[in-house]
């Protein structure tokens, strides 16, 4: 069964600092990998996705993620965070066969001035 682990429940960074959110997955083959962001009271917005090919994926809002098969990881990065990046971030994995999207428990990002 597929699963996702986001080891950091809550991360606080200063505005302008760099950010890395961790995500580890468990799946027997190469999965489809996603990062979603949820602002308070809002729905889920897709930041980026990985299906195959280049392991460094660029997304919206200046985010990028790197797929590392050897580490079963898909960490999200941003070189300089903005106050508007404060939100809940979810990593997710999908099986190419049944399209079931499984989410991690999320990481809450707080930005301090």
């Amino acid at each position: 069964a597929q699963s996702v682990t986001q080891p950091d429940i809550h991360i606080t960074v200063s505005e302008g600092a760099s950010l890395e959110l961790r995500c580890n997955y468990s799946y027997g083959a190469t999965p489809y990998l996603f990062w979603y962001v949820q602002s308070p009271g809002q729905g889920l917005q897709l930041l980026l996705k990985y299906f195959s090919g280049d392991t460094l994926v660029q997304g919206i809002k200046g985010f990028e993620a790197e797929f590392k098969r050897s580490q079963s990881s898909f960490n999200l990065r941003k070189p300089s965070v903005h106050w508007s990046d404060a939100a809940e971030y979810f990593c997710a994995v999908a099986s190419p066969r049944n399209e079931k999207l499984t989410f991690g428990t999320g990481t809450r990002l707080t930005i301090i001035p």
Partner: protein
Amino acid sequence: DTAVSQTPKYLVTQMGNDKSIKCEQNLGHDTMYWYKQDSKKFLKIMFSYNNKELIINETVPNRFSPKSPDKAHLNLHINSLELGDSAVYFCASSQSSYGYTFGSGTRLTVV
């Protein structure tokens, strides 16, 4: 135009009542889903339909019954509501896993 729209956005109801949440997508996707987000923000799939056919039915109480009249609509009916059903319910659609588009959610509060 909203790609995946859910109604209502908020729903407050008493225990024991029956309620429905509606979802419509205008993306032409073949697959639609219902996800539940609990108070700890954990998102878990409940159901998925592909072209009106039930594909995934996770261990959800049979008080929850999805209905898909056509591939653009997936409604969720809940009978005999319980306090533990309070959550945010998200509808989503996808096409061959090339991206999942979520609705803005329905916050259900059972009192």
